[in-house]
């Protein structure tokens, strides 16, 4: 394992936080969350895990990359292919551990937030200032603020409506909209409110500097019209099925039951919203 250990030592001196395990004398497991070099607070990352066995570099390391954050799915697959290629093309059995880590870092730096959408408004991440949660999920700051505000309103409502002895017990845990990881920790409702205000202010400042940047082409009216046209055909097909089921008594008759229970789906006309900024 000499060749490997030498290289691992070098690796650890370059990269901070590499986790090294030796489950057996002839095996090393390396693990590191690699981040892109740009913009430290919102950098993209992946977790790289590498198993190096006796015989390295003749026997290539097994590399797994997981937990892609801040890079798109196609980009993540491309990174995977790049790593595979490095391993494949290493026919002269040169040490490649460091090279693989470096490749991941370079790739993340080049491709972070490319083709990534905000998980809340589904618009391009690069169109507006972003935040990253403690669980490394990315979204627009404004979208996240709006989410916090809605959560806050709900907690307040719940507390207001709770029985006096239950008020303390209302769960005011804010969770990540993507993975439900708790984002609360020591926060109280009062803190959130202050945080939201602060975040909105910062976002507005950042927004100004972003305005000059080129935006990715967005959905056009034409796209929408084309889409709608294709749907009409599908709708006609579904309408036939519906009529057939109705004839056979397979469709629930809400009217009949309405007097006993109050339930109906609101189907008002579409709300017209004119939006320039990606605030849903």
């Amino acid at each position, binding site marked *: 394992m000499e060749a490997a250990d030498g290289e691992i030592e070098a690796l650890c001196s370059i990269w901070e936080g590499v986790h090294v395990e030796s489950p057996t004398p002839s095996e090393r497991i390396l693990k590191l969350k690699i981040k892109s070099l740009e913009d430290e607070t919102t950098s993209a990352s992946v977790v790289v895990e590498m198993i190096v066995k006796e015989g390295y570099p003749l026997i290539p390391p097994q590399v797994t990359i997981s937990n892609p954050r801040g890079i798109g799915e196609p980009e993540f697959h491309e990174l995977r292919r790049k790593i595979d290629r490095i391993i494949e093309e290493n026919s002269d059995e040169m040490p490649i551990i460091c090279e693989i880590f470096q490749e991941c870092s370079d790739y993340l730096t080049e491709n972070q937030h490319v083709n990534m959408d905000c998980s809340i408004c589904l618009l391009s991440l690069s169109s507006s200032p972003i935040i990253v949660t403690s669980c490394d999920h990315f979204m627009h700051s404004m979208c996240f603020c709006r989410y916090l505000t809605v959560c806050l309103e709900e907690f307040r409502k719940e507390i207001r409506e709770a029985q006096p002895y239950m008020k303390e017990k209302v769960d005011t845990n804010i969770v990540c*909209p993507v993975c439900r990881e708790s984002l609360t920790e020591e926060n109280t409702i009062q803190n959130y409110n202050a945080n939201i205000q602060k975040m909105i202010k910062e976002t507005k400042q950042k927004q100004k500097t972003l305005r000059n940047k080129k935006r990715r082409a967005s959905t056009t009216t034409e796209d929408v019209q084309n889409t709608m046209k294709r749907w009409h055909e599908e709708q006609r097909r579904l309408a036939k099925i519906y009529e057939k089921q109705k004839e056979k008594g397979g469709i629930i008759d809400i009217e009949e039951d309405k007097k006993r229970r109050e339930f109906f789906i609101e189907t008002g006309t579409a709300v017209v919203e004119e939006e320039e900024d990606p605030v*849903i």
Partner: protein
Amino acid sequence: MAAQLPRRIIKETQRLLADPVPGISANPDESNARYFHVMIAGPDDSPFAGGCFKLELFLPEEYPMAAPKVRFMTKIYHPNIDKLGRICLDILKDKWSPALQIRTVLLSIQALLSAPNPEDPLATDVAEQWKTNEAEAIKTAKQWTLSYAQA
């Protein structure tokens, strides 16, 4: 009109068409792009296999901060769906998150058809039958599928 909808809704709608979920079809209404006509095919491994279930889905004004409203229109014998077609599913209520989409909601409903959960019932009589005599419940569900949910 459609162009003035929030872009998120337009984008979701387009993706639903470009990359449809197997066994699920969702189309916006011609006159109201927030109202979707949905069809879910009964999963093969369930008593609803061979069935074609029509649902309606509506995106409220607060969407995506509030969950879509979804209801079965085709009759279905299922412990978590009542006779008005209302669905008992956590993500449609307190577990809603704005990161969820029409697609994920419909996938969850499809999964609910494969895995009825009589422990968390909405239709108590159906759930009771499901718990005390599962074989009979499954038989009834198959019968309903055959009588009411054919394409």
